C-alpha cells in the first residue's frame, strides 16, 4: 500500500513554510512526524498534493520552563515528553501511554494537537491543564486556548495557513495528577481516557480539580460536574467515588465497534475514580 503521488518540500524557515502552504493551495498539508497523516495517505483517505515537511524549520524543538509553565516546541516527539516523567507530570504520563515506542519516537505534540482527534491523549491533557498553542500564520502569531482549539471531529480552529510553533502548559507545581486510559489491546487508541489533576488546601480539602475526558465526544471534554462535586471535599476514597459517578454527566459519546455509548459512560466513571485516586496518591 502506498500513498497517491504528491510533491514534497522541506522549507528552512517558518516564512518559507507558510509561503509553500499558500502556493500549494487547498490540498497542501504540513508534515510533522507523519504518524497520523501517512497512515491516512496509505489508505488513500487523505491525498494531499503537496507535503510541507517541518523537520528543518528551526526553533520548533525542545522543552523549556518559563514563568511557571512549560514551553514545548511543536516538533517535540512523544518520546521526549515520555522521558521527562520527573518534571513534566501528567504530560509525560500520558505521552508514555501513546501507541508504542516506535510511534512515540516519531509522533510530535504539534501534529497530535493539530490533528485534533478526540481519541488521542495529548489534546485531553492540553484541555485539562488549560494550556495554549501558538500558531504562526501570514499575519503573525496568535495564541489559542485549548478550549477554543478543538472544534469537532478532527477539526480545529487553526487556519489552513497556520502552523503551531509551540505549546504552553502550566507546570502545575504542587498538584497531584493521574491519567487512566482503557484499551482493548496494547497499542490502541483509548476506548476512553481520563486525566485528573487536583490541588489541595492546607486542611486537605480539594481547592481545585480538573478532569479531562478522551474519546467521550467529538472533542476532548471536561467533566465539570465531577470537578464541582470534589471542590471543598476531603480527598478520600468516598468523596472520589461520589464525584466520579458524575464523570459522564452531559456527555454524548460516540459508540464504536468496541464500545456502546452506555459502556463508554460507565468507563468514564470508573476511570475517573482511578485517575483521581492516582492523583490523590491512593492508587
Amino acid at each position: 500500500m502506498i500513498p497517491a503521488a504528491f510533491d514534497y518540500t522541506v522549507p528552512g524557515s517558518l516564512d518559507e513554510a507558510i509561503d509553500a502552504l499558500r502556493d500549494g493551495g487547498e490540498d497542501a498539508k504540513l508534515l510533522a512526524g507523519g504518524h497520523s497523516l501517512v497512515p491516512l495517505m496509505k489508505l488513500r483517505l487523505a491525498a494531499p498534493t503537496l507535503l510541507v515537511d517541518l523537520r528543518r524549520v528551526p526553533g520548533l524543538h525542545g522543552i523549556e520552563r518559563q514563568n511557571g509553565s512549560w514551553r514545548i516546541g511543536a516538533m517535540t516527539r512523544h518520546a521526549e515528553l515520555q522521558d521527562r516523567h520527573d518534571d513534566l507530570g501528567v504530560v509525560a504520563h500520558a505521552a508514555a501511554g501513546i501507541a508504542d515506542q516506535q510511534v512515540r519516537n516519531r509522533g510530535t505534540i504539534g501534529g497530535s494537537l493539530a490533528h485534533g482527534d478526540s481519541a488521542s491523549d495529548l489534546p485531553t491533557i492540553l484541555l485539562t491543564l488549560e494550556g495554549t498553542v501558538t500558531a504562526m500564520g501570514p499575519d503573525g502569531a496568535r495564541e489559542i486556548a485549548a478550549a477554543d482549539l478543538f472544534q469537532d471531529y478532527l477539526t480545529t480552529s487553526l487556519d489552513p495557513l497556520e502552523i503551531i510553533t509551540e505549546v504552553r502548559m502550566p507546570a502545575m507545581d504542587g498538584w497531584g495528577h493521574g491519567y487512566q486510559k482503557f484499551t482493548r489491546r496494547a497499542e490502541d487508541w483509548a476506548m476512553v481516557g481520563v486525566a485528573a489533576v487536583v490541588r489541595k488546601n492546607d486542611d486537605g480539602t480539594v481547592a481545585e480539580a480538573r478532569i479531562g475526558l478522551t474519546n467521550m465526544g467529538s472533542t476532548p471534554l471536561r467533566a465539570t460536574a465531577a470537578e464541582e462535586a470534589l471542590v471543598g471535599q476531603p480527598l478520600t476514597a468516598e468523596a472520589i467515588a461520589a464525584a466520579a459517578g458524575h464523570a459522564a454527566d452531559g456527555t454524548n459519546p460516540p459508540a464504536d465497534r468496541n464500545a456502546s455509548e452506555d459502556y463508554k459512560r460507565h468507563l468514564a466513571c470508573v476511570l475517573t475514580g482511578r485517575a483521581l485516586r492516582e492523583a490523590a496518591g491512593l492508587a
Partner: protein
Amino acid sequence: MSTTVPVQVTVNGQARNVQVEPRQLLVHLLRDQLGLTGTHVGCDTSNCGACTVHVDGQSCKSCTVLAVQVDGAEITTIEGLGQEGNLHPLQEAFWNNHGLQCGYCTPGMIMAAADLLQRNPDPSEDEVRHGLEGNLCRCTGYHNIVKSVLDAAGKLNVTQVGA
C-alpha cells in the same frame, strides 16, 4: 508529480545516494531499492512492527515513514545489527532461547528490543512485555521472545561491567 528527488542516507554504516518518489515508503526503499529484505512488511497499518528499523538510533516503523523524511539520517536494519559469525547479543539470545518460530516478526522484534534495552538496560519481564507492545507475533505466544530479551539484557550488562 511523480518526479523523483535525491535522498542521502547512511544505511548500516554505508553512505547511499538514491532517487525516490516522495511517496516511496522507507521500508520499500530498504527492501526494493537497496535489497535489504531482512526488514519485513506484516500489516501496512502501522500495527505489527515487522518493519521496525532504527533511524538515528531510535526504533520506528519503516512502513509509516516516507523515504524523503530520512534524508541525512543514519538507518540501521537487522542486517546492520550483527553479521553471521558475529551476531548481536540479541540475535544470539533469540537463537539460543528459541525466540522465533516462523521468523517473520523476528527482525522487527529484535530492532524494537534493541531500542528497549538502550532505553532500559535492565528491564523486568513486565517492562519487556510492555516495551514490545508495538510488535506482533503470530507464532510464539511471546514467551520465548521475552525470555530472549531478558537473556540478552543479562549478557549485555555483564559485557558492560566487564568492559
